[in-house]
């Protein structure tokens, strides 16, 4: 039944969304560790500092089948429902759309009335996704102004091309492939858009066959993983421009466009450079009607003793930063960068997007360092900062430590562990650990986090 007033978690602009009340719950994708017989689950974590169960798991819902590998997920509806060209703000932000990256099965999970007791209310089987979209391995979810957009890494047989398909935001029916003309695009990973410019952007990782059995060194050294981003006409669903970062820039992953719809720029992270194992952040921006790229941050590899390194890295005697996720605060001021390899987590002031300034850094885990958390300073931690989420007001940062099951083992062969932590962010710059918040799990690995009511990567806005 439609609401009589807009869902209170919808905000016309990112500026207004920053005034949202602090979140009380976080939903976390939890996947079984290799060898485990547990079905994957969505965990509910208490993030209300006033609560007696702060920083603990307070609920979970198990997936109906084994082996989904939950990864990324998103809401059925968000602030984009207020967009003026397709307004429907009387729907509820209520359901989480949770794909299994390995199984291609999608789950619709109801988070109401009790967010601590979420329920699976609909399952879309892989065969239906294959038949209706000709895609598989659904991944990123964004609630668009007129439908839910889902990225998919490949075709049903595990090759390319990957792309985007659409879901109806009320019935969750699959509406089919999004692309009308994909041009040269073949590899796929993340996507997002500039709604004010009718522009959609996609990035490149690899086809399912290139990633599912682990990172393949021959493909990597041959520069075969993704190294481009693509610009699309959102309205006409046509490929417009390919931007090549260069063969040596391997794996172009998370895309964070400016939240302000009048700004035509954004940031994308590159996992590793074949030249020197560095990682980098690139700025895309509109320049006289076409789009340009510029590398604005480079994070060098760190020398390390070969005895502390997994077989894959021993010869290099260095730890690559492996930037796997980035996130941008709703005021477009701070960019957060996860270095899953070195275990560093960075904050940059990107008020001037062309020249970011480093304003904060903490360390936890890391391939060579194994830095402990301040709550338990004697216990070394495996894994590193990975999926990061920023609260709407920009004051709290949450992140987890697992990357992708098959790849975790290659970089952390003695076990990646499982933890989620929280940082407090100074609005003038600077980040510190919340010493009360270290959630470790012995049963699941943890991946993407979504905050109740929305966060800094869940909503799109049509008003500045």
């Amino acid at each position, binding site marked *: 039944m*439609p*609401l*009589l*007033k*807009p869902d*209170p978690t*919808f*905000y*016309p*602009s990112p500026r*207004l969304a920053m005034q949202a009340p602090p979140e009380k719950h976080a939903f976390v994708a939890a996947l079984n560790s290799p060898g485990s017989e547990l079905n994957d689950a969505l965990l509910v974590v208490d993030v209300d500092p006033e609560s007696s169960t702060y920083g603990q798991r307070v609920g979970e819902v198990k997936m109906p089948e084994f082996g989904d590998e939950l990864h990324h997920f998103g809401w059925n509806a968000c602030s984009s429902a*207020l*967009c*003026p*060209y*397709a*307004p*429907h*703000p*009387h729907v509820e932000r209520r359901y989480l759309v949770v794909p299994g990256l390995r199984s291609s099965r999608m789950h619709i999970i109801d988070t109401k009335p009790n967010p601590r007791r979420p329920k699976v209310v609909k399952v879309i089987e892989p065969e239906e996704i294959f038949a209706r979209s000709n895609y598989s391995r659904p991944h990123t979810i964004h609630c*668009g*102004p*007129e*439908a839910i957009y889902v990225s998919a890494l490949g075709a049903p047989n595990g090759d390319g091309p990957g792309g985007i398909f659409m879901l109806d935001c*009320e019935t969750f029916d699959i509406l089919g492939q999004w692309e009308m003309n994909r041009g040269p695009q073949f590899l796929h990973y993340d996507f997002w858009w500039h*709604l*004010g*410019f*009718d522009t959609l952007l996609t990035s490149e990782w690899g086809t399912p066959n290139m990633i599912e059995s682990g990172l393949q060194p021959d493909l990597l050294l041959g520069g075969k993983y993704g190294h481009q981003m693509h610009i699309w006409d*959102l*309205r006409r669903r046509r490929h417009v421009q390919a931007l090549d970062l260069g063969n040596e820039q391997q794996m172009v992953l998370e895309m964070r466009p400016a939240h302000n*719809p*009048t700004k035509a720029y954004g940031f994308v992270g590159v996992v590793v450079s074949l030249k020197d194992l560095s990682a980098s952040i690139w700025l895309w921006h509109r320049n006289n009607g076409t789009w340009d790229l510029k590398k604005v941050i480079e994070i060098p590899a760190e020398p390390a003793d070969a005895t502390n390194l997994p077989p894959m890295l021993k010869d290099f005697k260095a730890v690559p930063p492996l930037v796997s996720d980035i996130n941008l605060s709703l005021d477009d001021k701070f960019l957060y960068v996860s270095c899953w390899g070195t275990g560093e987590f960075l904050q940059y002031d990107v008020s001037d997007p062309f020249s970011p300034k480093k304003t904060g850094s903490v360390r936890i885990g890391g391939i060579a360092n194994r830095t402990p958390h301040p709550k338990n300073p004697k216990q070394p931690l495996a894994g590193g900062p990975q999926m990061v989420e920023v609260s709407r007001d920009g004051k709290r940062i949450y992140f987890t430590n697992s990357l992708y099951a098959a790849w975790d083992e290659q970089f952390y062969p003695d076990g990646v562990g499982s933890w989620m932590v929280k940082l407090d962010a100074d609005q003038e710059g600077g980040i510190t650990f919340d010493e009360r918040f270290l959630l470790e799990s012995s049963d699941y690995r943890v991946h993407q986090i979504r905050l109740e009511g929305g966060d800094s990567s869940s909503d799109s806005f*049509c*008003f*500045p």
Partner: protein
Amino acid sequence: MNGLWPWLTLFGLGAFHGINPAMGWLFAVGLGLQEQKRAAVLRALPPIALGHALSIGIIIAAVLLARISVPPFALKIVAAAILFAFGLYRLFRSRHPNWVGMRVGFGDLTLWSFVMASAHGAGLMLIPLFLKSPPQTLAPQGGAMAVHMHPTHGLEFASFSAPSLLISAIAVHTLGYLLVTAVVAILVYERLGVGILRRAWFNVDVFWMLALMIAGLFILFL
């Protein structure tokens, strides 16, 4: 005075359509904010009004034509059924239009406004005003095309031939619509800000669809 009521009703329904954020003022505000120019708000108004006028104009023209060839009783039943069914369907299946795009020109905006008005049944809401044929015996001028003012009903148009009635009706309705659209758009752009959407965007669709269903029933008793 009775002769004014149908015109005021048309004007008032225009205002009612105009106040709905989904009917155009919000898009005008969005375009203004995107370009950070008040001129962009104003530039959006003519095509938005034109699209709306076309949408309701087609429905009025259809009714005036039907009035010539369809027996009054049958017309009444069909119109009542259409209004009621449309209202009921939209009440329970609130599909929103699949329009995509903020970079719109005059033609796009006209089409968008036409689609939005049509999808919401804006023209349907006006049907009851145009159903009543002039009493045959009293038609003073122009035969069946003229509409006579009936002493017991307020909602009839006096002494108009169909083409001029069509043009005048579109003009009066669209004027009411445009005035409210323009005033709300400027007010929100200049003063109130889009934050007001969170507090004041009542689900007018629900009332709108109920109004259509009530109008459908009302027709039966005309």
